[in-house]
């Protein structure tokens, strides 16, 4: 990994990424075993801050490089200046230097506390650098096939759909359908075998298209056996009646192309029952199936990485949010409660299960941007000055910037960026009004405000339930979407009250930990 052959690499994708995280990342460094590159973020304030220390930081990294490479976790270069490393399989060692966090800042201060953020950033960056590889592969292949075949349309449509890997089974189904229609097979199937470790959502999947000559149970069993028993090197791709079990079962010649992951066979594309004057597979069929098996391998890999990454990233951000909430015993458990209230309101206004889940995630991370707001401001007792309030107002945007790099998480962004907008347009940060504010933002705004009013704050006692609900009703059409206030007021809050009691009960412990 630390070979001297690698060039130090801070590529375009890395720079774009780092600039996008300017609130959190001070600089990015790369090390190839000999030379060390240090790239500051584009933020002028950050640059000024860094300039006098650049040499010092580079020196600190140089001294700790072995430790960094071996650590597998962030280590501190100097107190308040943690760094992390990202090991890219092909590239040089690449890492971040996080924004220095002096004591009065609200952000977590030690490398250990920053670990989830850094891990999340690392995943995010690696994905950015690797994304679209599958698309390049599609384009290469289309180019290659275009010389001899007319299947470019199919390949491009598959390539396009590779961008949205959130629903891999549906994609596999589409691809399966296309194979049958384009090549004139009587039936086609895409089969992935079971694997407990598989996070792709494709494990033990069988999708078919056309009239299958045998029932599903038999087909699933026969294909499972075929896939698990064959070895790639001696894979038989053309199965004949009288020689192969599956061909006998299907009563026709069957083409089977293995789908590979890291040289392991994880599934197969299967087709047969060719119609038309010539009932046997042509070189065009085998070529297309060969190419499609390659795509499905990439789809599987992307889908698995996507799921892992998304879960890990959201998990990390939840951890950060919880830690932020816990810093102040008045906000302890806030994100969890807002998430719960958001889902209840979403259900009440008839959103489907998928949307409710997105609202829940939005709620859990809606205040994650507070990591960039000084603690003295966040936890200040008494009125904020204009300047302090301006700092608070940055948190939706910061949270949005942290999240926006992740593919297919766009739907969660709305809740983060817009939860402080007001129906009358006097909110922040975008000052959108009415229905121009995305629905998730409008929903979380009600949930967020309700929880704030229902909790004791450093500057006032909790308001009684009745008064809180009256206040929500009064703000319909000014602060809140008037169509949301009634459904909200009618919610059953007993589970919420239980949550508050639980959070009050365990708020002592974390508060002590963080004070240490």
């Amino acid at each position: 990994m630390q070979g001297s052959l690698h060039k130090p690499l801070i590529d375009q994708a890395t720079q774009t990424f780092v600039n996008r995280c300017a609130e959190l990342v001070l600089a990015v460094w790369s090390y190839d075993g000999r030379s060390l590159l240090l790239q500051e973020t584009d933020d002028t304030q950050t640059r000024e801050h860094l300039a006098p220390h650049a040499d010092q930081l580079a020196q600190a990294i140089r001294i700790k490089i072995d430790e960094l490479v071996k650590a597998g976790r962030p280590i501190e270069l100097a107190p308040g200046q943690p760094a992390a490393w990202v090991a890219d399989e092909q590239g040089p060692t690449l890492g971040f230097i996080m924004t220095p966090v002096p004591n009065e800042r609200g952000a977590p201060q030690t490398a250990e506390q920053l670990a989830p953020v850094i891990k999340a950033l690392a995943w995010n960056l690696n994905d950015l650098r690797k994304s679209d590889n599958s698309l390049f592969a599609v384009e290469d292949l289309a180019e290659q096939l275009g010389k001899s075949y007319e299947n470019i349309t199919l390949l491009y449509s598959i390539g396009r759909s590779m961008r949205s890997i959130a629903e891999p089974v549906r994609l596999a189904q589409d691809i399966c359908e296309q194979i049958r229609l384009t090549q004139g097979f009587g039936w086609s199937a895409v089969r992935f075998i079971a694997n407990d470790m598989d996070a792709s959502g494709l494990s033990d999947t069988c999708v078919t298209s056309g009239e299958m000559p045998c029932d599903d149970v038999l087909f699933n069993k026969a294909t499972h056996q075929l896939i698990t028993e064959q070895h790639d090197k001696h894979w038989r791709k053309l199965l004949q009646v009288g020689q192969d079990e599956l061909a006998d079962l299907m009563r026709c010649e069957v083409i089977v192309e293995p789908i590979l992951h890291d040289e392991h066979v994880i599934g197969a594309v299967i087709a047969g029952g060719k119609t038309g004057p010539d009932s046997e597979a042509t070189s065009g069929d085998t070529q297309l199936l060969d190419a499609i098996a390659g795509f499905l391998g990439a789809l599987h890999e992307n889908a698995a990485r996507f799921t892992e990454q998304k879960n890990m990233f959201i998990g990390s951000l939840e951890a950060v949010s919880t830690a932020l909430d816990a810093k102040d015993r008045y906000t302890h458990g806030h994100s969890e409660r807002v998430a719960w209230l958001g889902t209840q309101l979403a259900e009440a206004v008839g959103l489907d299960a998928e949307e409710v889940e997105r609202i829940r995630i939005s709620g859990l991370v809606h205040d994650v941007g507070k990591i960039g707001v000084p603690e003295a401001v966040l936890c200040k007792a008494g009125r904020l000055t204009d300047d302090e309030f301006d700092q608070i107002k940055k948190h939706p945007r910061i949270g949005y910037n942290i999240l926006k790099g992740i593919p297919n998480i766009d739907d969660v962004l709305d809740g983060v960026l817009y939860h402080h907008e007001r129906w009358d347009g006097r909110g922040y940060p975008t000052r959108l009004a009415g229905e121009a504010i995305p629905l998730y933002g409008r929903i979380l705004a009600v949930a967020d405000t309700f929880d704030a009013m229902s909790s004791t704050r450093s500057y006032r006692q909790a308001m009684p339930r009745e008064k809180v609900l009256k206040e929500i009703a009064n703000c319909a059409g000014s602060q809140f979407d008037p169509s949301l206030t009634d459904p909200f007021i009618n919610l059953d809050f007993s589970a919420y009250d239980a949550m508050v009691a639980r959070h009050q009960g365990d708020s002592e412990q974390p508060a002590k930990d963080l004070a240490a």
Partner: protein
Amino acid sequence: MDNPNPTSGADTVLIADDEPHIRHLVGTKLKMAGYTVLVASNGQDCLDLAREHHPELIVTDYQMPVLSGFEMSQALAADHDTASIPVILLTARGHKLSDDDLATTSIRMVIDKPFGPTDLINRVKGMLEQNKAA
């Protein structure tokens, strides 16, 4: 790639293509038709195998790394020892070879990709019979 020593009796056909799916398809179908099959993944390997085993016929792709099917067929024609081995050339549509070009090679037939294997096998059979009659 398993290349068993051709046994006497069955005719031997040598296939050359850089695309594994073509080698697999043509190889499977030729074996099913009773031929002994040798495979190569580029023009140079194909030439070496032809010189060593003297197959009865060669089916080769046009575009291949190291040595193209066309160059390989020129080399076969230029060598006394291999000049009599007939060659069937598989080409991607759009590649047209002039008769003058073909005259410098052992190529007897050109087939466009994509092709149906039964059609190819029938042509292989026909050409082998024709060659024996001659």
